[in-house]
């Protein structure tokens, strides 16, 4: 069953790596819903957050293809309940509408939006949250003459992660690390032997 997955990729900082990662999706005609690159907790190591709608099996294979790239250290995938995530949205609305209607202010407060810029002609609000929340606000502000809307890519933190410092130390060792392919039979020796 297809569902939303967030892929977290730790990489070296190298020109062209974005293309190498992007074509892994486009080659298979998979649409990238959202893509964010940022620094990570470690200097010089970058972090990609990629959101796609696919089955877990496909996502697992994609992660292996991503990890195969020379400059990629590690790729993880997580379902939405395994991560904390946020997206940021900006909304531009006519100031007169906002000023005149008390209702608007109440709604904005309800959605945790705050004003970033207030000018005579327009006001820009910012809201951060999940897709449904920022979407809802478009709907509401639409009634009050929404002029412009933009939303950022998803940024996500993996709940069950201790960061990348330890992993990086393993990578820096010259000897190969303990990384293995996940195998449903591993650790179930007894079951394996019944044919």
């Amino acid at each position, binding site marked *: 069953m297809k569902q939303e997955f967030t892929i977290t990729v730790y*990489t070296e900082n190298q*020109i062209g790596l974005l*293309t190498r990662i992007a*074509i892994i999706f486009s080659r298979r005609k998979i649409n990238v819903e959202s893509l964010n690159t940022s620094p990570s907790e470690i200097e010089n190591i970058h972090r990609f957050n990629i959101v796609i709608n696919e089955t877990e099996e496909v996502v697992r*294979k994609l992660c292996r293809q991503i*990890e195969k790239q020379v400059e990629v250290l590690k790729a993880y995938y997580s379902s939405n309940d395994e991560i904390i995530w946020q997206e940021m949205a900006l909304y531009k609305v006519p100031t007169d509408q906002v000023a005149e209607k008390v209702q608007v202010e109440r709604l904005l407060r309800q959605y945790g939006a705050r004003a970033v810029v207030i000018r005579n002609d327009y006001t820009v609000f910012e809201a951060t949250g999940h897709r449904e929340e920022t979407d809802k606000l478009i709907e509401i502000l639409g009634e009050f003459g929404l002029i412009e809307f933009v939303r950022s890519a998803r940024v996500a933190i993996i709940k069950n992660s201790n960061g990348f410092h330890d992993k990086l130390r393993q*990578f820096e060792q010259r000897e190969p*690390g303990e*990384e293995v392919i996940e195998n449903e039979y591993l650790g179930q020796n007894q079951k394996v032997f019944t044919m």
Partner: protein
Amino acid sequence: MSTIAEPIGSKAAGTEKTTTISGSVAVLEAFLAEGVDTIFGYPGGAIMPIYDALYDYNDKLKHILVRHEQGGIHAAQGYARTSGRTGVVFATSGPGATNLVTGLADAMIDSNPIVCVTGQVFAHLLGTDAFQETDVINITTPVTKWNYQVTDASEIPHVLAKAFYIASSGRPGPVLIDITKNAQLQLFEYSGYQKCNHIRSYRPKPNIRTEYIEQAAAWINQAQRPFVLFGQGVILGKAEQEFKAFIEKSGIPAAWTIMGLSALPTDHPLNVGMLGMHGNYGPNVLTNECDVLIAVGMRFDDRVTGRLDKYARQAKVIHLDIDPAEIDKNVKTTVPVWGDCKETLPLLTAAINQKVYPQWLDKFNDYRRQEEEQCIVPEMNPTSEVMTMAEVIHALNDLTNGDAVIVTDVGQHQMVACRYAKFTQSQSNVTSGGLGTMGFGLPAAIGAKYGAPDREVIAIIGDGGIQMTIQELGTIMQFGVAVKIIVLNNQFLGMVRQWQQLFHDKRYSFVNITSPDFVAVAKGYHIDAQKVEHREQLRAALKTMIDSKESYLLEIMVGKENNVFPMVPQGCSVAEIRLK
């Protein structure tokens, strides 16, 4: 510059000595340090500084001037395949670099270690649509294991060290280094060449997990009808002995993919033949009857598996591969043995019991007999007046005793050559397996000869494929490359014609290709040649070709509408293989 007696910038004891050299010289010094002896290339504007430097290295680096950059990279692939070393290519920017793309894609899918160095316009012209500028890095990204653009000469030593390391380690593949002209010309302080043996984000050699070895051994030990499939991983891992020891102790019949061909001698009693669309009858049918399937260094290509949802569903699958992305990619694995098979096979051999499977092997022999009766014997000893491709290969086997390197192009002749050619040693079959590149054969044969100069190299090519890269006869002429060329001429693009016959109601759409007088063309290139039209001439002509000390071309006329059988029709299960 005077001739260089020892590597430039070699470290004197205790002191870091630097020398001022150009980026171009640094490229050639890197090649020498990496043990490169042959470069296949073609000069042009943006790579002229490197070619200028090469002028002084003529005594240490052999440069083969090909007739087209595609020929250069296919030659480097042939070189890599027969020598087990990294093939090296030079090309200029723009069209020179784009001409490499087919070869890069071919090397990528067939895991050939290749390093291409391309010239590029001056760094300040990048992105301005300068003369002969193309975005080579982005064009080649999907078809390279790694690529990098150098704009500063000081990067060259470590970038090339990385290039050679990445190309040849783990699952090998092509690497392209694009060097701007200013970097080639630029002088910099060079402190010697350091080989690369570690990149922190790159894991060529995974740790071997003993759990998996134990699980795999347990499955093998209790198997009743185990079956081994092997691919090029055995050759790339230089693990032929380890593989032989494994099958001999386990007693398991083994079948090969065309990339794995020659890793196990043809006459080995456990070698049961070829897998896949035009493979042997038994290995295909019995894939769906075995209980444990052990895949070694192969990737379950669709030409091997046929219809996936009907492929070996009954079997437990043990997959030995160095590339984790291959595990579970096409066929769901029961036990993945991730690692270099040079290391995993001995561990597995130690953990399994010595066994034989006489009844199971008899099944293979039964199918073999059926195939011989219906396909092999009629093909090899035809009663028709026209010659068959198989009888040519059969006659060739008698003359080479299986010791030759066989290079093929793509199409019917390729399948026939792979099916019928005999091999006694590894690294002897050079073919375009994954990409199916017509035009591969002739240039690859040139490279194969440089990779194995003491061996007989025979290129078997169709009348279609040879016309795609026929200009490489010029390379053979100029450098006296003693490759033997057999053109199997059926006056058709035979494989497409076969499909049109079988699946498109014989609507022969643009497959009747006409050919020049190949003998005259060869002679125009000062290559001796003859045409064989009758069976009585065949053996004598082949002998003349083999006995020739120089290159020789033999055009052999074969049946126009002969088909390659057995065949697993596309979309069918391997068990549905047809004998006619």
